[in-house]
């Protein structure tokens, strides 16, 4: 309940500004599909038996959730915690640090879902994923959002300087974006890279999403889902403790 209060606070703020900042969320997928799908797709007509645009779209959807959720629990949380002192105000009420962290995680997942939802709606307009199996993508969008919210918040709980987020985005998220099988199949990379990829979060989301979009149902999809849920759960436990330690001292 207390976590819901924190979520509601963010929703109240967002209600005032969403009209201003939601438009880019629709343009981004449009530009990606236009540039990479149609532009690059003119040269790469097919990948793993799919038109190139259909190959990259499910992965790009997942990466947009990643950017949305992590932006929320990195920069936005850092500013609320250290510059605007909003958490000082919240924590002097019955809200405790773990409630606060959980509320921010749900809010991060919500923002990720908004990014993903906007992206998905553009894919539908392009005629992609118009089948009943696509219903599975909705809970997946939220879970992926939650997972990346925990990853962003964990990094935020460890740093004291806002500049350090550059490392998180450039050395962690950008490599994930490029090497998680969004633009080319992981099978063509060396074995070592594939093993590393297995340990990273975006890869599993991309594989799941592509399976759902193209209705390639296999046991491997379940394996990816279990990986995502397990990591999200464990990371939530870790990050709640980390925020508690940071804010109660």
């Amino acid at each position, binding site marked *: *309940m*207390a976590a819901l*209060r924190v979520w*509601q*606070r963010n929703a*109240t*703020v967002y209600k*005032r500004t969403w009209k201003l900042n939601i438009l880019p969320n629709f343009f981004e997928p449009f530009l990606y599909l236009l540039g990479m799908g149609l532009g690059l797709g003119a040269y790469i007509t097919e990948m793993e038996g799919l038109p190139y645009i259909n190959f990259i779209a499910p992965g790009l959807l997942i990466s947009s959730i990643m950017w949305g959720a992590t932006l929320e629990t990195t920069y936005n949380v850092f500013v609320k915690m250290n510059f*605007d*002192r*909003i958490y*000082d*105000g*919240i*924590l*002097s*009420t*019955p*809200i*405790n640090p773990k409630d606060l962290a959980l509320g921010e995680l749900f809010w991060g997942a919500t923002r990720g879902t908004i990014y993903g939802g906007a992206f998905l709606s553009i894919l539908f307009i392009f005629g992609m994923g118009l089948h009943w199996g696509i219903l599975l993508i909705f809970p997946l969008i939220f879970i992926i959002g939650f997972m990346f919210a925990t990853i962003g918040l964990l990094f935020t709980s460890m740093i004291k300087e806002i500049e350090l987020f550059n490392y998180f985005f450039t050395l962690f998220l950008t490599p994930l974006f490029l090497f998680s099988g969004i633009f080319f199949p992981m099978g063509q990379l060396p074995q070592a890279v594939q093993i590393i990829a297995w340990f990273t979060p975006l890869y599993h989301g991309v594989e799941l999403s592509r399976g759902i979009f193209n209705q390639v149902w296999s046991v491997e999809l379940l394996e990816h889902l279990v990986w995502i849920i397990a990591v999200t759960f464990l990371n939530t436990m870790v990050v709640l403790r980390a925020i508690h330690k940071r*804010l*109660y*001292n």
Partner: protein
Amino acid sequence: MEKPAAIIKAISLTKAYGALKAVNDVNFEIQPGTCFGFLGPNGAGKTTVMRMIYCVTPLTSGLLTVNGENVMENMSAVKRGIGVVTQDDSLDYDLNVINNLLVYARYYDLTRDQAVRRANELIEFFQLEEKRNENVRTLSGGMKRRLQIARALINKPSILILDEPSTGLDPQARHHVWAKCHELIEQGVTLLLTTHYMDEAEQLCDQIAVMDRGKIITEASPWDLIKSEVSPYVVEIRGEEKARQKILAAVSDRIDFHEALSDRLLLYTPDATPLHTHIQDMNIPVKTLLSRRSSLEDVFLKLTGRELID
């Protein structure tokens, strides 16, 4: 008459950061419906005591109860009964004035109706009607502080904590805040404040604990502190050091005690007029010679041997 049960009680309260003891074995009891002040310079440990009371800093050792609840065991219950005005402005700058109150009411699980009614009462009480829908950034310093106090009162707490309530305010705004504090005390709210302003402590507090380097050095009512620690009057002399020394030597048998500071000499006496006249008659040139009532500042100076600097 028997004293009522303390609303806040601290026994051997200690907070250590590594080797540094920010609060060192402190004991106090606060009676309901009174105003209790922690007085001391920056770094004395006042804010840390406050933070332990409203459960954002854990105790290293000791026992602290608020409204009968242990602060280490039932944090949410303790916090439900306390309103907090932090030293640094912690208003929500992403929201306007009314929403600062309404969103805060949600943290206490007030219903929408309760929240709206209470927010309107508080906006009126703190004279913020004109700024109701304005962004918090557009408020003056005094208005921001009033809004912070209003926000702290949203759940009708029995205890209001004010961490340096008038720091950074102009004189008019300070008096406005003090007047509101007096009204709250009359309404039965227990006030707990930290300050390094002596006049603020004298104006508001029934009881004062003087803190220095993590310890409470003494605790009493403002008047008792002045009566017991210093003499009722001070004659204050500024001027060349030689002149000051000469005067001190000449009057040392007529005073209770003195403080020789870097820039002035303070002579404590039960009656200022004869001493003042005596010094004037000595015809030693000084920059200023004035007599005044003793204040808490003098108490602090005597207890810690240090001047109180903001």
